[in-house]
């Protein structure tokens, strides 16, 4: 039979080509540069209107304020790419923080026990979310709407809504107040989560599968991919990251409270969508998410510095998020 020859055989890529591809890969999006332009515009506007905005201290401040959202948003990126949603992350954070603090107070006041309890609780909530979503085929919106309420309720029940004080100095140093290579640890943990996220999503087999499951679940199934396992893993990852965020928060405030960060799931989802993830699945990237959450953090910070009243802050933030999404989409 005749050999079929392609009309365009693509030449093997050169080194500069590859470097360009790497940049494209990390920055990719619908309109890749819009997001970064939006961020820069925001920085310029705030720098011009507030003398306190443009300083290293303030930027570290923004970084610290953004950590919780950024860490969880890494997991949420995986979930949204897989065509799912997790509304329970803020409640999971609260429950994980309580678990960590209580475990430490019960067992040897050991920071390792606290860390394992916090991460484990988060991962367990994620596992339950994932199993209910995939095995019972309940939409994750409903599953996690339920666990949002249940996790928060459990967090309040364990101590009858009282906070649990933490006294372990090592714990504070590792998760909240120390610094690593000169970087405050909350920011270092955020960077670590980002890097792990980038490796997993863009370089690991898991990432390929996540994109396929979200891009077309049927085609993924027909290609021999265990879509349920992949989806569940994304939920576990997100739960564990909520646990990590809980460690950071509780180490910073020297206590775990059951009523913290209510409504933060919306900031997390907004950050991920701002960062270029498609709510219809199959598209998204971690660096976009980082900038998405930086934009939200910068907004929060800048509006406070400008002395905008907090109700007005909410209105402006909401409007800017919608405008930015409209702007970055086609």
């Amino acid at each position, binding site marked *: 039979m005749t050999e079929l020859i392609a009309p365009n055989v*693509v030449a093997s890529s050169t080194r500069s080509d590859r470097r360009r591809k790497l940049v494209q890969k990390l920055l990719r999006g619908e309109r890749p540069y819009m997001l970064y332009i939006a961020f820069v515009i925001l920085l310029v506007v705030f720098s011009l209107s507030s003398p306190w905005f443009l300083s290293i201290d303030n930027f570290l401040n923004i970084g610290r304020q953004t950590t919780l959202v950024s860490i969880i948003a890494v997991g949420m990126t995986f979930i949204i790419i897989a065509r799912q949603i997790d509304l329970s992350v803020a409640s999971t954070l609260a429950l994980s923080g309580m678990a960590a603090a209580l475990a430490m107070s019960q067992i040897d006041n050991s920071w390792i026990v606290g860390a394992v309890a916090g991460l484990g609780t988060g991962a367990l909530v994620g596992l339950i979310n994932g199993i209910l979503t995939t095995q019972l085929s309940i939409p994750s919106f409903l599953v996690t709407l339920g666990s949002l309420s249940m996790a928060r309720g459990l967090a309040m029940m364990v101590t009858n809504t009282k906070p649990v004080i933490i006294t372990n100095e090592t714990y504070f140093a590792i998760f909240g107040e120390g610094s690593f290579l000169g970087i405050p640890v909350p920011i270092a943990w955020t960077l670590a989560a980002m890097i792990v996220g980038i490796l997993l999503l863009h370089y690991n087999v898991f990432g390929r599968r996540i994109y396929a499951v979200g891009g077309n679940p049927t085609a993924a199934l027909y*290609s021999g991919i265990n879509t349920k396992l992949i989806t569940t893993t994304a939920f576990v990852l997100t739960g564990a990251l909520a646990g990590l965020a809980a460690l950071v928060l509780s180490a910073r405030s020297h206590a775990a409270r059951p009523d913290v960060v209510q409504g933060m799931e919306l900031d997390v989802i907004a950050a991920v969508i701002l960062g270029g993830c498609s709510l219809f699945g199959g598209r998204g990237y971690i660096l976009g998410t980082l900038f998405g959450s930086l934009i939200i953090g910068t907004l929060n910070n800048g509006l406070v510095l400008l002395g905008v009243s907090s109700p007005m802050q909410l209105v402006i933030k909401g409007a800017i998020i919608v405008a930015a999404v409209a702007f970055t989409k086609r």
Partner: protein
Amino acid sequence: MELSGSVAAETRPSASLAMVRAINKRFGGVRALRDVNLEVRAGEVHALLGENGAGKSTLIKILSGVHALDSGTIEIAGKPVEFDSPAKSREAGIAVVYQDLSLVESLSVADNLLLGREPRGPFGFVRQRALLARAEAFLKELGIPLDTRATVGSLPFAYRQMTEIAKALMGEVRLLILDEPTSSLTSDEVRILFDAIGKATRRGVGVIYVTHRLNEVFEISQRVTVLRDGANAGTFVTAETDMKRLVNAIVGTDRSASIVSRNERAPKRELDRSPVLSLSDVSNDRLRAVDLSVVKGEIHGLAGLIGSGRTEILETVFGLRPLESGAVELEGRRWLPSGPADAIEQGVALVPEDRHMQGLVLDHSIERNVTLPRIPHFSRWGWMQQRAAARRAEAAVARLAVKAQGASSLVRTLSGGNQQKVVFGKWNDPRPRVLLLDEPTVGVDVGAREEIYAVIRNAARDGSGVLVVSSDLVELIELCDRISVIVNGHVARTLARGEIDDAEELHHLLQMYQAAGPGPLQELSA
């Protein structure tokens, strides 16, 4: 006298209904249409042929107001028109029935037919009974056998399509455009569709009929216009032309010659007798005691009507549908397919029926799609070997002659035939032991179809056992070494290639087995 005169007017359409003159359309650097002309007369079925990318869709989109033309004119019933929106085109009496339908699946047939035009009572309440009555009367007049109360989503595809056509005819339609209406219909359903088209033309509606199936052109159209590379390649009176001339016009003279010679050279292979895949007494919710074997290097066809269980046989082998009783053997070893992952590991590959829904992730690159079922092959300790994956994808693009910029092109941007080649590319390397194909050339143009046949023949020659489901009987005759007739989830009969002469004969056989049911005929043939 008067009577015969009016009959003559009906049967010999002459009034020019739509006149398209010297249309040009450019997308960026690509000239999609170059001075294209088309004339459709009232009461005429005018077939529009051409390979994917020849400009058919662009022309249709211009007529339906989706795209604006760069230059040229359109006249409807002698009056020049300009469409800047689909609504304008609809107002001028042009209705398009697209391949992907535009019905509300959760509503009934009647609701869909009168969507937006519901008979209303006081305060805007819908007069349900009047709505049903009107829809029923209309369908009866057209002779379309549809249950007006049925929910559209629950209907088989063919009936949804009929609903779509009926909906188009319900408005004041003068020009009806059908885009590949039969691509997923069985022969009986095609009959019903052609009847409905006949009823429309008798009312003076002009029809533009886009298809890839040449035999339909001869059956239904009065004239044919062929587009090639965005320009007119000829307009023929159907009765005065033949298949060969049309193929020449579609693919250009040189290439059609090579296609014909390739077909004539189709090698007669000596088949190894050892079965790669055998099913014995396999039953489940849709299958009844299926006995079937595919030997090494064989192309084995499954013929039958939609819903007869052809697809379900493939799904059962691929582990998508649980086996209730019976046995599956792969190269003589007993195997219980537990799911697609298991099947793939065993060397079973499936090219599914619906490449958009089941075969491809449209928004991802060719590379991502091709490597999808083989991710473990391109990874070490869980990390992707990106360069190996890219190389493999480039190789597949080259080997299958996928017309694309490169392996990083998004699959959505490719034509139907090239998308299908990508689906084949997923299973190209390593060679599958069993290759399951479900309607492998639906929506694929004539030229690419031959290339896909070549891919299938190559796979068989390299030793895969191929099991292919197709509604296109010509395709089965052309490809297969043996053909099994499936009726009601059962293999009614398996025929060797020599036992059957042509598609016509196969068609009659299908009808006969379908009418008789599987039981008695099986005894008769034994």
